[in-house]
């Protein structure tokens, strides 16, 4: 790699860092982040109700880790991270165009790719942080009487990593959708709550045309019966292949987002 390329990459990296810090700071304080943080904490309320119910009803409780892995994590996977990634992913570009603030960014000495990548990274970090806090608190509540069992923390770490990968991948997809389509939310709903659910019913390789397939391949397959409405027929890929595909999908959609953002004219509506 010659010196010019290295310098360019270094400049790009610095630009991404600066854009990241600008939007991470702004996103942290935004009202919408606070609202979505509360949404991301809904499973905590669920966990509290599940944990406290045996105290009031006198019935024996279901094992905390079972509920955590088969309810809380799957709820995040199938619904919450989709909603969060859809909003924050499409916001990367759409927010600047709708708010007419794009000009302030595109008249700075930072490349358009750096703007997209920096803002994407900032919003992804925020969503991972929100989700991570919700997952961790839910885990602690559900396993409050087994916190000394360190083997359980492996499950927590694994699940947080899987959810983070999901957030990274979905946010990249929706970032691309936001740069490409004007009305990106409808596409997001159709993809996230339509395609991602329906395709899982299809046997064989067709399942591999969804992001959720690769995420579920990284989780243990649940027993059929309870909560079966949350997990569909799964023919998992290997973990290595799943991680590779998730990063590949992320890279492709981020690359496309940078390309479209650099080439497209964004006209502000009066």
């Amino acid at each position: 790699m010659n010196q010019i390329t290295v310098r360019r990459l270094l400049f790009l990296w610095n630009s991404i860092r600066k854009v990241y810090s600008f939007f991470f700071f702004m996103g942290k304080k935004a009202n919408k982040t606070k609202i979505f943080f509360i949404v991301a904490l809904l499973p905590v309320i669920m966990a509290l109700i599940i944990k406290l119910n045996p105290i009031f009803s006198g019935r024996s409780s279901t094992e905390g880790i079972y509920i955590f892995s088969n309810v809380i994590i799957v709820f995040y996977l199938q619904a919450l991270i989709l909603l969060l990634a859809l909003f924050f992913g499409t916001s990367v570009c759409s927010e600047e165009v709708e708010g007419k603030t794009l000009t302030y960014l595109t008249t700075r000495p930072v490349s358009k790719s750096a703007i997209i990548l920096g803002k994407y990274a900032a919003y992804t970090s925020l969503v991972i942080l929100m989700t991570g806090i919700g997952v961790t608190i839910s885990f602690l509540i559900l396993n409050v009487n087994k916190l000394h069992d360190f083997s359980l923390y492996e499950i927590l770490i694994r699940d947080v990593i899987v959810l983070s990968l999901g957030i990274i991948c979905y946010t990249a997809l929706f970032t691309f959708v936001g740069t490409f389509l004007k009305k990106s939310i409808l596409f997001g709903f159709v993809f996230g709550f339509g395609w991602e659910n329906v395709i899982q019913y299809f046997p064989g390789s067709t399942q591999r045309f969804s992001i959720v397939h690769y995420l579920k391949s990284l989780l243990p397959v649940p027993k059929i019966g309870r909560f079966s409405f949350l997990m569909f027929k799964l023919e998992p890929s290997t973990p290595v292949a799943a991680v590779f595909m998730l990063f590949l999908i992320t890279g492709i959609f981020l690359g496309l987002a940078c390309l479209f953002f650099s080439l497209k004219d964004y006209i502000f509506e009066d």
Partner: protein
Amino acid sequence: MTIKEKGYAHWDGEFLDKKFPWWPITRYGIKLTFRRKQFKFIFPLSLLPAVFFLAGIYVSERLEDFPFFGRETVEFLQINPSYFKAYLASSFMIFLIVIIVIFCGSGLICDDLKHNALQLYFSRPIKKKDYFFGKTAVIVFFLFILTLVPGLVFFIMKLVFSGSFKFFVSYPWLPLSIIGYSVVVTAFFSFFTLFLSSLSKNRRYVTILIFGTYILSDIFYRIFYDIFSNHYFSLLSLRANLQQVGAVFFSQKTPYPIHWIYSLLVLSGICVLAGFVLKKKVKGVEIVK
């Protein structure tokens, strides 16, 4: 009197007794909704279930011409109040209603907040209730086309196809049920949509709130039901509450073994909360602290 009360935003003149002062707001809201390209495609599609159900009413009078129909299909095509409930209170219809209100309702108040249009509205001789009524009427227009109109058309066409008033004599209260349920579902979604629309200036955010609230409420119910096997958790689900109330209107057995009054209370509670927030949020002048 402080400036924020007297200021530039409020109409100080005489309020003349004018018929339908809210009508221009409604008319413009409907026009704007139809301008959206995706809506022009989705709205006719949303009427397809009505077309199929209407075809079912026709077929029900000519069942002898369709001997290949299975027993279940024949049972379903016995046109009675459950047939009407199957259309109006089905999960699919409620989902369609959510999609339609996203298009016609998500921007109703949030766009006004975004463009500071509230000051323009309240500097005209219209009252707050006219503003709300005008906005609500946009949602009512589209939801009635989806619910009330097809429901009444089904009833009328049943009488026409059967060639007698026997159906009316058997179920004279059915038109009132159709009207009543349509009004309840429309009123609920009007309050719900306007409330969420008033929470933000960003239409995308409001769209996600509307859809997310609907989807998550249902998921929560199913999770809690699976864990606790307690039907009272159905009160968490907007869809389930609407179906409970719908069953009562059509004199059918409620889908969940809890008293329907609880569902009605939940829906009413959401409407009251929505009304309270709307009254606070919608004002001519915004004071930024």
